[in-house]
């Protein structure tokens, strides 16, 4: 048996960053020419084709439920059901992720319901040395939901 070692933190997406205090946040890019907000950087802007104009921009961690599906069957070994949500972030950018804290039932979901990005840590089988940093969406109703995984306002 190996002795426990410090796990490596692996964000699940180039736009998931961690600040010096260890707090995760979302950082996308914005085109200086057309203003479009994107998740991942690239050589040029896919919207206006300007090259070298994408600058880092902090993404909002609130948004609204744009669309979703409730996944009952995925690839073998993937636990279901879960809500795969598309969220339109306040201030720009569309993000796909799991929506938790609400029944995976169309009757329980409302388009445009406000949601909040929450970071959490998870693991996958076969990679015991990796601590995965991902985001999920949680409904934002009335007061702020409990934070999980070191997220901060």
């Amino acid at each position, binding site marked *: 048996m190996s002795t426990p070692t410090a796990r490596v933190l*692996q964000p*699940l*997406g180039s736009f998931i960053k961690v600040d010096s205090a260890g707090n995760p946040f979302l950082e996308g890019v914005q085109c200086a020419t057309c203003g*479009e907000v*994107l*998740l991942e950087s690239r050589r040029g802007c*896919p*919207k206006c084709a300007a090259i070298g104009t994408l600058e880092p921009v902090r993404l909002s961690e609130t948004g609204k439920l*744009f*669309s*979703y*599906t*409730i*996944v*009952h*069957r*995925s*690839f073998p070994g*993937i*636990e*279901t059901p*879960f809500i*795969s*949500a*598309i*969220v339109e972030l306040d201030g*720009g*950018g*569309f*993000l*796909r*992720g*799991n929506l938790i804290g609400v029944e995976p039932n*169309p009757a329980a979901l409302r*388009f*445009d319901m406000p949601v909040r990005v929450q970071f959490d840590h*998870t693991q*996958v089988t076969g*990679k015991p040395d*990796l601590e*995965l940093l*991902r*985001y999920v969406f949680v409904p934002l109703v009335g007061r702020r939901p409990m934070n999980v995984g070191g997220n901060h306002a």
Partner: protein
Amino acid sequence: MPDVYVVGTDMIRFGRYPERTVDDMGAEAALLALADARLGIRDMQAVYCGNLGQANAAVGQRIMKQIGQTGVPVVNTANACATGATAFREGWIAIKAGLYDLVLCVGVEQMGKGMLGSPKSYAGIPVEGLLGSATMPASFATLGMEHVRNYGTTFEQFAKVSVKNHHHSTLNGKAMYQFETPLEDVMNAEMIAYPLTKLMCSVNVDGAAAAVLCSETKARELGLMSRAVRIRASVLTSDPYTPQNLANQDFNAVTRLAAHGAYEMAGVGPGDIDLIELHDCFATAELLHYENLGICNDGEAGRLIDTGYTALGGELPVNVSGGLLSKGHPLGATGIANIYEVTTHLRDEAGARQVPGARLGLTHVVGAGAACAIHILEKV
């Protein structure tokens, strides 16, 4: 530029043929199409072959080894679910350019059962289920829910697409399935990704289809005009940028762009079309494409399926072959199988599922990535 005609086309019955090879199925379809044109492989000046699963393995040349290695140029295409239509379009381009008078276009695919593709990874970690779902059913379910969001379309309306297309394929001996699926069966089938049940997902099958294309001069010279079908438009698009595309593939904008181009090239509008074979890879997709192809206004697709407008016997029958949902969807073959279906109606040879008096037909495929191909065919 000269007009280009389909002078021969056919397909093998779509099904599960694990004992066969891609070469063998492609060769059979090629020979059927050549026989339909009353021509042989020696008459072909170039061959265009669409296949996705073995895109690096010279499938077109392997087909030639089955039917005659004449030494002509063979071009293999891979373009997601638009693979077959892309091969067909390359043949059209070559004749339009005046390079050739006669070319053969083949599409063929051998598929496994089950969920298409494999989980997406980030930094070597499979993220399916951790960051939502990127399966094809989930992508098209999410697009369907976008339509629900915008227009209040219902689960039942999506399900009716499957009822219709499964009914259509009971009249098509070359379809994978020939059975009725009543609405309650569709809605109560295993839920895959809401609002898509298993019967609302296209069926992965093996298959092949082929078409012989010919210049007008040559078709007249060979006396092939009586059964020839004119290609009035051939348009291929890639996905223009849309913001939603950051999070989920957008199959709408790429289709709208192609539809606009195709109607413009043909000089016709959606109201002139008599039948459509469109990319119903999932039941949600068919309703989206009613609007993307302009056969109704945005938000009216649900009502269109309710009224029977797109059923055989309706104003504008859609997917009378059974569509991808019931005829089956062998990726590389689908685009050319659509051409076969529409051509067969324009020739008034579709038997029990014939759309009476069909003069103009439209075919549409759209693949992940994205690629959309639309062809408009006309009875001569």
